[in-house]
């Protein structure tokens, strides 16, 4: 397990100085190591973990299970790559199990997501069926539990 990757996974905003101290390296070494991880495609980006519904109460996120017919030469790649182009789409995965692609969609309201599925997704050649699941409530996101500030249940007790 790469400790640097683990620390960044939990908090990408730690400074090189802080990371260096914790890992017993110099900030320059950390900078180089991160650059290396980025160049090799092991770190492909950084983003904040957003409590979506706090930012926008109407915001809707949906998981869509999609069954598709794979194409002759490209398998699932072509359709998956195309889905990834839409700005509404947050993630696209090829799945094992009873459906083929899983797509996460974020919209500003329910209607927007519904229209995206009916107007853009369903008509795509090769899409056989879609099943849409809306997120009702979030409990944990990218390793962080909700509510964001968990009460420290350790009491200040001492002998």
């Amino acid at each position, binding site marked *: 397990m790469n*400790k640097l990757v683990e*620390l960044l996974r*939990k*908090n990408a905003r*730690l400074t090189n100085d*802080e990371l260096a*101290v*914790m*890992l*017993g390296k110099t900030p320059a070494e950390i900078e180089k190591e991160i650059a290396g991880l980025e160049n090799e495609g092991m770190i492909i980006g950084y983003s904040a973990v957003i409590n979506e519904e706090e930012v926008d109460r109407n915001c809707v996120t949906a998981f869509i299970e999609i069954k598709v017919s794979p194409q002759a030469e490209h398998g699932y790649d072509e359709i998956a790559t195309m889905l990834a182009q839409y700005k509404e789409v947050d993630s696209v995965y090829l799945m094992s199990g009873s459906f083929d692609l899983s797509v996460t969609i974020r919209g500003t309201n329910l209607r927007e997501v519904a229209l995206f599925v009916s107007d853009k997704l369903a008509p795509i050649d090769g899409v056989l069926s879609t099943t849409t699941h809306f997120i009702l409530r979030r409990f944990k996101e990218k390793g962080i539990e909700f509510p964001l500030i968990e009460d*420290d249940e*350790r009491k*200040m*007790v*001492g*002998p």
Partner: protein
Amino acid sequence: MNYEELLSKKTQAIKFSGIRKFFDIAASVKDVISLSVGEPDFKTPFIIRKEAIRTLEKGKTAYTSNSGLEELRAAIAGYLKETIGVGYDPKHQIIVTVGGSEAIDASFRAILDPGDEVLVCEPSFVCYDPLIRLADGIPVPIETRVENRFRLTREQLLEKITPKTKALVLPYPNNPTGAVMRREDLEGIAAILRDKNIFVISDEIYSEMTYGDEKHVSISELEGMYDRTIVINGFSKAFAMTGWRLGFAAGPAPVITQMLKIHQYGIMSAPTVSQYAAVTALRECREDIDYMVGEYDMRRKLIVNGFNEMGLDCFEPEGAFYVFPCIKSTGLSSQDFCLRLIEEKKVAVVPGDAFGECGEGYIRVSYAYSINHILLALKRIKEFISELKG
């Protein structure tokens, strides 16, 4: 009722600890962020909790034998053999207690007669002094110093030994300093004690939390020390099981036999569910311990660096999960520093003098907190220091 007249004079003379006094103050201030708690921020590993649930489902709710579940004592013996390389007979040499604290209490009561002196390395955990007094002993502090890395030296020990010395409390890895005793340091101590009738109460509750390549060494494994050492340990710190109240003592059979009487009449047996869960802890949680210690180590480096950067000299701790920075450069006493820090920046740390007079001029800061929490607290302490300097 004239309580003062009626209540035990001995008990009334015991004071509430400086930690507790300070916690009461901290609890009265709103939105305090704390670096003061002496327990892991990790939850007990899930597998241990599951075993406890299973134990309840099976209806195992009766007392265990007084000295503890046989399979737990066997597991403890195995654990001690593996970690400190010393063999104990689970039948006669190990007792399972309600936390390490009960084991410490029972040790004192098993060995002390009125007037016996007990040497206590300070700064150290707050319970030794009052428990010694309650057992009619006389606590004799030995003030360890930062220039010796807060280790006990031969010279300091020799200076304090008298014909009345009955025991030495050796609390390493140390709360609050984070000091450890290396093998060569312990050899020096053992050389003095080997031919004397002095017990060592080796409180090794933080034994798993050592950083760097050298692992914890117990004085019991040194030549001639096995017969005079009572090893205290428990599940609270290493396995993040503070609320389960489970510790143990291992030592010479005659000592454990006396402790068993005290434990049996006062306690009966340690909590049954906790004991079953502890068997799982010892058998299956090595990876969990190593993970937690790795996390503590990163935070330790971060926090030591943080204090040094803000101009507070910080002894680099090699064990436990506390740092003990020196605040003498601020011109404030430990108490004033902590009170003002809480009032002005809402950060709670514990004044060093709570751990013995020689802790004056220091503060105890726990890093059993998440990295983000530590960074936030450090930022506020840094502001406090620069405002002090004006």
